[in-house]
Every structure is written in C-alpha cells, then in structure tokens.
C-alpha cells in the first residue's frame, strides 16, 4: 500500500484475506429438505456458497465467517449452525 500517495492498495484483498479463521459456528448443509430456493447463496456476505447441482450446495470454509445468515434465511430450515471445534 502507498500511504504517501493517497492510500492506494492492490485490489482483491477480500480474496487474500481468508476470513474462515473468524468462525465460532459452522453452517452444516444437511441437503435433506433443500428446495433449491438459492437464498443461502444469494445472502452469503462472503459469496462463499455455491450450488453444485439441484438441491446440493457447498460452502468454502476458507472464507465462511460463520455469520449464520444462510441458516437464518434458509426457507426449509435445512442448514444447522454447529459449534466449531478446532
């Protein structure tokens, strides 16, 4: 970063910064009642939820902060937040 010239920084810092380490709770996608409403993917603030196929989602835990928004928004209560054990 160039502090002497307007605090110019390289872009793409959200990729470099692996926020998975912040997690206390971890979302578990049970994939049982999933109706592919896609809300978990849309609302994820990190953009780390991906649909693999119909009714099947995956989470990139390197970036998942464990915020729980996916579980809150899930229309079929198919996502469970469990205590992170390290």
């Amino acid at each position, binding site marked *: 970063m160039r*502090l*002497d010239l*307007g*605090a*110019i920084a390289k872009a793409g810092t959200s990729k470099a910064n692996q926020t998975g380490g912040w997690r206390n709770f971890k979302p578990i996608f049970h994939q049982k009642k999933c109706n592919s409403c896609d809300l978990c993917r849309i609302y994820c603030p990190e953009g780390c939820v991906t649909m693999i196929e119909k009714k099947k989602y995956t989470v990139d835990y390197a970036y998942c902060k464990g915020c729980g928004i996916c579980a809150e928004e899930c229309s079929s209560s198919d996502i469970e937040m469990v205590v992170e054990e390290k």
Partner: protein
Amino acid sequence: MSTTFIEGSIAVAKTVAVSRPHVISAYPITPQTHIVEHLSELVANGELKSEFVNVESEHSAASVVLGSSATGARTYTATTSQGFLLMIEVLFNIAGMRLPVVMTCVNRAVSAPINIWNDQQDSMTARDSGWIQLYAEDNQEASDMHLQAFKIAENKDIMLPVMVCMDGFVLTHSFDPVELISQEQVDKFLPPFKPEYYLTPKNPLTFGTLVGPDGYMETRYFIEKTMHASLQVISDVAADFHNQFGRFQGGLIDTYKVEDASLVLVAMGSIIGTIKDIVDELRAKGQKVGVLKVRSYRPFPKDEIYKALNHVKEIAVLEKAVSLGYGGILVNEIKSVFYGKPKTPKINGFILGLGGRDITVDTIHQTIKETVKASSEEKFIGLNEALIGGK
C-alpha cells in the same frame, strides 16, 4: 503581445480547453455559469475532444471528477458558493486520494441570506481540505493560472488538486484585454498526464482504502509534507511560464513597491488592482506605501511573506471573508508569520466587500487611515451605519 478583448469566464474556458482535459464535469451556478457553458459548447461543436459529463448536483460533479481523475484522465470542474459547499465532502476525498483535479472556484458569498455576489468565503472555508489554492488578480492571471495549475497538480512529486480562485462577477463578467494561449504553446508547456497509478481493469487498485489508527496519521503527514514541497513547484512553474510566455504574475506572492515601503497592504484576488492604483496615487504624494499579493494561499508561503515584509512598520490586511467567532482569517495568518521574530510590525485587519459590497477607492483609503491612526486592531470596514443602528 496580441490581446483579445474578452470576458474573463470565456478566457478561462478557452485556456482550460487548450489544456486538453479528457473529462469535464460541472453543474451550472451563478456566477460560474459562463465558464462551463462555453466549455460545453466547445465540446458540443466538436472543437474540444473531451467528455463533458452533465450531472444533477455539485456533489455528483465532484464525484465524477474524482473517478475520472483516478482513471488517469486530466480532469476539470468549476463551481462557486453553495455548489462549492456541496462539493466539500468530495474535495477532501480528492485531495486524500492525491488526484490532480483542477477546479475553478469562482468566489461568491455563501447563504444565508442568499447572495450571489462576490466575496471569498467559499474557498476560504475549504482551506484545510488539502487543495492547493491560488488567487487571481485579473483575467490574464486567472487564465494563465489554469495552465499552471495542471502542471503543478500533475507534478509527480505533488499529485494534489489545485483550485484557481477568481472573484465572481468582478473578474468572471468583466471584459478585459487578455493574451490567449495557443494550442501549440500549451503543448510545449504542459506534458501529457501520465500518473504512476491509475484505475484500469488490467491492474485493479483501490484508492483511499480503509486505513486505521495505525496509518491514517501518516497519510495526513504526507499531504502536509507535499504541501510544503509544492511551495517550490509553484515557484518553478511560475518561472517556467515566465520563460515561455514572458509574463510573470508572481509565484507564491507578488509585491508592488514594497521594497522601501513603511506601510504595506496585504490582500488576495481582484482587489489588488484597485490597491495598486491607490499605491501610485499615495506615492505621488510622498507616502511610502506598497501592496503584497498572496497568490498561493495554500500552501501558505510564510517565509516569502516574512522576507518581503520584515522591514515594514505597518501592515493592513484586507480580506473578503471572516471566521465567525474569531475574526479575519488572513490577518491572523499574516500575524503568525511574525511570531517569534525579532521585530513585529503593527498589523491591522479589515473585513470588507462581503456579499458583493463594492470595494471603492474610498474604502481602501479608509483602511490606510485606520492603520496609520490606530494601534493594531481588526474591524469591518464599509459597514452601513444606518443598518446596524449607528453602532
């Protein structure tokens, strides 16, 4: 020297046009209007290859020029008064991101009460924003200053925005002989703008990124340091300009008959011309009077002012702005020049010409009389006694 009899606004617009700005964005407001109207006309007629971005407010105009400057485009805007105040939030960002935008601040009073006439309260209010501020005495200087402004701003050691301040109506709406600058001359004087960092999809960057307590203070320190470095650059660019065009209106300051003066009037902008006439009149009567023009207000050239005035007995500072609750702004900065020095002259401050009140020869004579007579004091001059109940 071949001059054109031309309105100040149009002379400025023509100089901006030959400076080859890639992007112009502005919102029209009296008395800045003629400048941007003319530029918009040049673009519409195909005479100027620039992107003229019409916007819905001055905040947007400032935001557009911030963005375009960050892409490495030479960028220009102009505003005044309320429009200027609306821009202020973005002005700090432009300076903080070290973007060399050039702006004309047409000086006008601020509301309320609403008043469209000239004083210098608008730009003075943004003196801490990190913009270099230059004040023009006449339309030749206002025009030439814009070309110099791009060169100062884009200097790789400076990279700070420059504001050219010119008195609304008094200069913008006055027709005077002005020597206009040709495209060929500009191309010799002003190299193309090639910033070290600019926004491009090929090399993604963030300008003005989040900086916490661990680094923010340093960003301010760097701007302050650069402001001081710009003192030399402003002088150098004025000297370069003098070499190429044969005209010199001063770099940081300009003086007129100050060398042997015992009383010197200090001011900024178009009032300087009127004062020069009075200096000559009083000199003819044997009174040793001179005038010092503060051309660069930010950075404030303390050393140059001290060097020019250290032999003087009395100083009268005339200014068209006020820091409400404190008093004159420029006068206190002039006083600070002498702090800790062996000799301090008597320094009087006068606030005058607010909201377009005409500054006449008599007004200026009155400031001189007051300075000679009174011990150091600050006051409004030219108040209408009938309106203030004779107090």
